């Protein structure tokens, strides 16, 4: 078997049983790996109606066939489970080193089932796998846990949850290498519900490659394309993702004060240019990554610096809260990493709370006269993040995410979320294709299921009219399907700024010994997308939830270059369903499922 290690590790935390199973090579190729294969393995075993926190729920950690190879960015892994935030399929992706080392330890995937009676962690290396006690680690922050486990398991890579995951916050993340996050959809809380604190991996095994010389040649070609591309060879390495702050703001789609506005006059203070000029120490790349968008920045938390904020984090702890203080953002990012909590959902929940305060739903008395949750109050950010992560006082309500918070007050419309997952840093009123992709994303509000910002704002691979509706359903489908492919290979989505479907097919072919065309891999992406949709439908997620917050559909953008626009989802959605070959209610047709090999 080429590309894969050929082994799946199954661990039952209720019984303590540990076993290995052979990977079905044909099944693996059909779903590629990562997000695709992880979803298939998960769906074959778990009832979609399962309570995400029940022992019957499972959680799959899976790398891709290109993870651990020399391909650029081949180090990522995916966490697949049912999301406690959305009730949808959750597949949350992370970089760093852990995904590659799972492979070096000899495994393509780990399926964790059951629930331990006391806190445990799993130690994996190529010789043995153990379930070990973690009582001494429970309650500890992410970096303290990581350091303690690295001392016990020298050379191991550590994946762990923080207090937020232990306390079942619906926005808890899974962290690896301390500052890399499988951030979205609350996957950390599923680990917490199983009393599973951490998983360590180490080893030196390597997958067998079908055509090593061919892979070497195509890897070289892809690395050259990445290096010569203006984004992956210039903008991202130099400024990180934070470079988006100014360009998104200048287009008037940079949400402020919980999406009440779209232009931040103080954006420059928290921009990528400012981060680079005043705070950057060095780049912080993931495994085998020639791009290195990750930042390592100055902070009073450590003389050596700490992991720095990404674009989404900069936005959510600044413009979305009416604040323009870079040091507050760097601090907030640090505490989210330590508590193990998704920065987007954490910040967006604070933004929703601030709007609820602005409108009189949250009162000073409810906050026990604690620090006021008010737009512009920089002191409130880290203060309430800590309470959120530890579920103290009003923080317990915040820990449930913006939708449950706003719904508690009877006004869910103030949650800027789709399928209960908070929207990222782009106002869809001025980016019509992106809004369609938000509404139809299988994991709820998300930018990395189909990044239409590329053509609609950034001019990549070509500039589209961001207000135009024609053609957007086709673009959304292609971007969603290609993203599903990349997420299944084990590579980083950012490679797609330089590479196309053909390059991914080439890398897979040389690794696996397949003979796929660009169309073949896109078809696999469409298969994965439909599989996720089927899970959601069986889980009870109605197509009625393919929508956007009412504000974005009804309230005109009040200012800037997007002034006067709303999102026109009602016009786009039927065209999108048609493009996907689904019926008019948004249900995949038998004919389409048959074509995709899903019947």
């Amino acid at each position: 078997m080429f590309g894969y290690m050929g082994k799946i590790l199954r661990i039952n935390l209720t019984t303590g049983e540990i076993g290995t199973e052979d990977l079905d090579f044909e099944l693996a190729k059909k779903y590629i790996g990562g997000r695709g294969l992880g979803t298939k393995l998960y769906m074959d075993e778990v009832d979609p109606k399962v309570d995400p926190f029940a022992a019957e729920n499972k959680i799959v950690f899976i790398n891709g066939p290109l993870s651990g190879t020399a391909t650029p960015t081949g180090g990522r892994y995916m966490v697949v489970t049912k999301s406690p935030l959305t009730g949808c399929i959750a597949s949350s992706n992370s970089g760093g080193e852990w995904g590659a080392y799972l492979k070096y330890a000899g495994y393509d995937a780990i399926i964790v089932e059951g629930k331990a009676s006391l806190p445990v962690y799993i130690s994996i290396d190529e010789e043995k796998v153990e379930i070990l006690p973690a009582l001494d680690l429970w309650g500890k922050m992410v970096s303290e846990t990581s350091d303690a486990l690295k001392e016990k398991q020298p050379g191991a890579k550590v994946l762990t949850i923080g207090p937020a995951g232990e306390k079942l916050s619906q926005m808890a993340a899974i962290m690896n290498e301390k500052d890399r996050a499988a951030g979205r959809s609350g996957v950390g809380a599923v680990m917490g519900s199983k009393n599973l604190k951490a998983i360590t991996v180490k080893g030196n095994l390597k997958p067998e490659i079908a055509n090593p010389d061919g892979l070497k040649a195509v890897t070289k070609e892809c690395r050259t394309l990445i290096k010569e591309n203006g984004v992956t060879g210039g903008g991202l390495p130099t400024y990180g993702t934070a470079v988006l702050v100014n360009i998104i703001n200048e287009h008037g789609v940079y949400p402020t004060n919980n999406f009440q506005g779209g232009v931040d006059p103080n954006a420059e203070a928290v921009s990528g240019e400012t981060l680079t000029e005043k705070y950057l120490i060095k780049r912080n790349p993931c495994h085998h990554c020639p791009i290195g968008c990750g930042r390592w920045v100055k902070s009073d938390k450590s003389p050596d610096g700490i992991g720095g904020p990404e674009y989404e984090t900069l936005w959510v702890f600044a413009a979305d809260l009416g604040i323009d203080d870079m040091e507050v953002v760097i601090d907030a990012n640090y505490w989210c990493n330590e508590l193990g909590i998704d920065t987007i959902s954490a910040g967006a929940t604070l933004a929703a709370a601030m709007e609820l305060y602005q409108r009189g739903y949250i009162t000073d008395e409810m906050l026990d006269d604690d620090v006021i949750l008010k737009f512009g109050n920089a002191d409130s950010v880290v203060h309430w993040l800590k309470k959120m992560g530890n579920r103290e006082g009003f923080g317990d309500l915040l820990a449930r995410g913006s939708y449950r918070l706003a719904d508690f007050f009877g006004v869910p419309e103030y949650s800027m979320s789709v399928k209960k997952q908070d929207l990222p840093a782009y106002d869809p009123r001025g980016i019509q294709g992106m809004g369609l992709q938000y509404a139809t994303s299988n994991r709820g509000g998300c930018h990395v299921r189909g990044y239409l910002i590329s053509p609609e704002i950034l001019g990549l691979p070509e500039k589209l009219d961001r207000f135009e509706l024609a053609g957007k359903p086709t673009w959304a489908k292609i971007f969603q399907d290609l993203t599903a492919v990349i997420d299944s290979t084990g590579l980083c989505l950012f490679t797609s700024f330089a590479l196309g479907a053909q390059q991914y097919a080439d890398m897979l072919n040389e690794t696996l010994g397949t003979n796929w065309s660009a169309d073949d891999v896109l078809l696999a992406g469409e298969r994965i997308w439909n599989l996720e949709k089927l899970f959601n439908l069986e889980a009870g997620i109605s197509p009625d939830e393919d929508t956007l917050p009412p504000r974005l559909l009804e309230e005109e953008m009040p200012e800037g270059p997007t002034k006067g626009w709303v999102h026109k989802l009602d016009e786009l959605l039927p065209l999108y369903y048609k493009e996907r070959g689904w019926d008019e209610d948004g249900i995949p047709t038998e004919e389409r499922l048959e074509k995709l090999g899903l019947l």
Partner: protein
Amino acid sequence: MAIKVKLFANFREGRGKIVEVDYTPGMTGQDVIDSLGITAPEIAALIVDGVDGKVDAMLTVPIKEDGYMAIFPPVAGG
């Protein structure tokens, strides 16, 4: 009168964040970037007086007397 030109990322190197360019009637974006030593292929996105579009087309649009431009090299993220 002068046109305000906002520069971003590496376009700022040796030029600064905001540059003022003297206005002449009928002036287009192409005239502005010529005066700044920036070429069209280096530009990934361009906004003229609050309107964005394909770079080549936007460079031919006449700028208002008190107008502004925002010019971006290839940048991305997510």
